[in-house]
């Protein structure tokens, strides 16, 4: 009886299907990776899904493992692989894939790396797959139906842009704000210009003046459009205070009324500057 039960259990075990070949990953493919263990696994062979359908990660770059690890006959262990992945899959590479300009601030993007499985490694593959996931504020990858290639140049970039939600109290907005994606209600939008606060930035006027050139660069205009204003926030970490330049809707609320929370982005659409190609492929 025990033997029958053991057989039944082992046959019921579904250790995982082999999936697709991990030796030759492709840039631009989307995958449904839903558990932390899959996210952190050394290889990821789940069949790709169309990027317009719900998925959690997208391959933004394919590169090759450098030496000395590449020389090892047996695949290095998970820690060694992931450490190499951190060096090979950089945020600069990701920003290029997203067609981010120097004024685009992002939020909720996590990078992970995958490698050939043991068989593919033994067969000679040294491909490194760099994936990006859109995460919530806890770091949990979110299901999206968005193709992230050149996303920051396109019309659907709000989900990955950094915005701030400031508190309104006693008729004034707080200096700091909570980080939220611009697809959620917010009061200001980051323009990726962070400046250590000094005496010249002590007043709101000083801060706005300092941030104005960056705002114009972000908006792609020579002067501020109607209805848009510069609205920097101040972030304090320990004793360090940083001015984070941001723009916001300039509509003045009625006295005693909280400023309107907005969703979406003020960033103009532009022509993508990258092809999102892999370093080596």
């Amino acid at each position, binding site marked *: 009886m*025990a033997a029958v039960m*053991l057989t039944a259990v082992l046959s019921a075990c579904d250790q*995982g299907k082999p999936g697709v070949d991990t030796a030759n990953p492709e840039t631009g493919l989307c995958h449904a990776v839903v558990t932390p*263990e899959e996210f952190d696994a050394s290889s*990821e062979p789940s069949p790709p899904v169309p990027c317009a359908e719900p998925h959690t990660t997208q391959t933004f770059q394919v590169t090759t493992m450098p030496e000395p690890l590449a020389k090892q006959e047996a695949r290095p*262990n*998970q*820690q060694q692989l992931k450490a190499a992945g951190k060096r090979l899959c950089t945020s600069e590479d990701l920003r290029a894939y997203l067609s981010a300009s120097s004024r685009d601030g992002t939020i909720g993007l996590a990078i992970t790396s995958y490698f050939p*499985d043991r068989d593919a490694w033994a067969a000679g593959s040294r491909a490194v797959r760099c994936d990006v996931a859109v995460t919530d504020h806890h770091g*949990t990858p979110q299901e999206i139906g968005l193709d992230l290639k050149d996303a920051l140049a396109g019309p659907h970039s709000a989900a990955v842009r950094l915005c701030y939600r400031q508190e309104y109290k006693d008729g004034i907005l707080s200096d700091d704000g909570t980080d939220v994606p611009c697809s959620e209600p917010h009061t200001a939008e980051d323009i990726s210009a962070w400046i250590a606060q000094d005496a010249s930035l002590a007043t709101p006027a000083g801060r706005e003046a300092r941030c104005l050139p960056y705002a114009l660069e972000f908006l792609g205009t020579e002067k501020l459009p109607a209805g848009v204003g510069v609205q920097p926030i101040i972030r304090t970490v320990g004793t360090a205070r940083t001015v984070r330049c941001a723009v916001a809707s300039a509509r003045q609320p009625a006295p005693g009324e909280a400023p309107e929370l907005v969703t979406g982005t003020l960033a103009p659409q532009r022509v993508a500057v990258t092809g999102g190609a892999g370093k080596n492929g």
Partner: protein
Amino acid sequence: MAEYGSGNATQLRERGGKAQKAFTPAPVRGRKGTKARPLGSLGRYLARTFGPGALTLGPVHGAAMISGLVAAALMVVRLLIPEPVGMGDQGEGHGLVCSLGVMNQRPWDYAEFTKYIHPAWVPHQFYGEGCGANGTGEPNYSSQLLLLWLGKLLTPLTGWGPGLDTRAVGLVCCVVFGLLIAALINVLPGRTWFRILIAALVTGVMADGVFADFFISPYSEPAAFLGILGVSVALLHYWNGNGPRWLALLLVVLATVFTVAAKTQTAAWLPVIALAMLWVPLPRRAADGEAAVVEPPTEGTPAEDAVRRGNRWRALLLPATAVLLIVAFSVAFINAQPKRFAEVNLYNAVFVELLPYSPTPEADLEWLGLDPSFINSMDTTVASTRSAVYNPLYPQFQEKISLGTIAGFYATHPERLITMGERGVTAMLTPELGYVGSYLEGFEHGPYDKERRFPVVLGLFSAAKAAPVAFVGMQLVTLLLGLAVAFRKRSAVGRLAVVIVLGGWFQFWAVMLNGGQAEIYKQMIIVGFMAALCGPLLVALISILASEPGKVPERKRRGRRAKAQQGSADPAIVG
């Protein structure tokens, strides 16, 4: 012989009592003559009711069935009412449970999901290395999968959704525990109430949150706990000598294989199990429950002696074959375990245990044949930022360090075992895993809150931390009393005590040498469970040693013998 001796003694005592009554003068003060003292009466009542009496053997099916049901029901109640309690997952559960095609519904972040228990696992298709040990995809086998699989079958029937709910696994564990308690009562010797008392104490150990909470968890510890109880029952049955010997041996083999397959650390008690199986069963006891008669050695011709010796060897053939089977299985099972586990254990043995607690870590590195640069990774795990896996010379570690190297090191540095033992005992006496919660989120319990509704073992262990030596002494006493009961009273309970104590010690050192300090509290849980079983065993051993089987009145015994001969009553049931 025993019957005559004890019966005679009883008669003498009765005669003495009469004489005393006739000539005893009135007491000068205090006690009132013939009036019994309340404490003494209570003691005598308890001894009469719960004492083992004559060490009778044989099943007591009715009592066993009721006790098993009650034990299972109590465990279900303590685990699920008024709210479910379990053991939070520290991340180890996925590697085992995912092989049933389910994923845990829990927060993504480690610090978040360890705060509470998350019993729901929903169907999910894993690919490649997404399922397995620590992201390597190496399959993680355990006999716990059998319990998990049964839980998966039960989950849809309980209304806990599709997939697998560890509360259903908890129910399965409770049922198995109830069956084992019923079986234990059937294989224990002595009066029914004595058996029930010992089974109740075992239930008390199991019901402590430090052990019971594992029933509702994705860990493999429940299989180990139940396996240890299963091995105990099977060994008692084997030694009692009831029923076909091959069947008794087969039960021992199955129970041992189940236990070893639960967690590899349990393989450490194989030498003890092997000795236990080669410790031939006791001679059958007389039907009326008297101690077994030991045949005196008789003089024989050399030819007869040779035949006797031949029979003895033949008697060992079957258990020896069974031992070989178990060893072969264990070797195969250990080899089938993820290589990743072995690598991490060796890493911990060196960088978490050996070097940080060394007065001369540089010299130790030299002894191990490792580059001095590894000193920078002292006191790190493989996941640390300073981990040795990032050292370009890490292949040197993989090449030179094995379990044999570690054993060799401690063989040549035995003084290091003393402090290591002290740390291990302290860890064993700290069985509560404070870094994982016991409750479901949303039940008015804070993060990491521990359930302590029945903290018998926890309380005793915590108290023993004040004097760990006393705790080891308790185990030693259990071992010595076990030997005394095994040889003087010829009871299988004594043998079981020896197996449990020695098995626990073997496992203790296996844990300390193979992994050491890394997550030591959890690793010591099974050792702690075996140590906690010394409680019920001590009660049984002391009761057996203190019992006087001959005290059963002659009239009663005659009646029982007659009934037994007629086959109309279970001879083991003593009124």
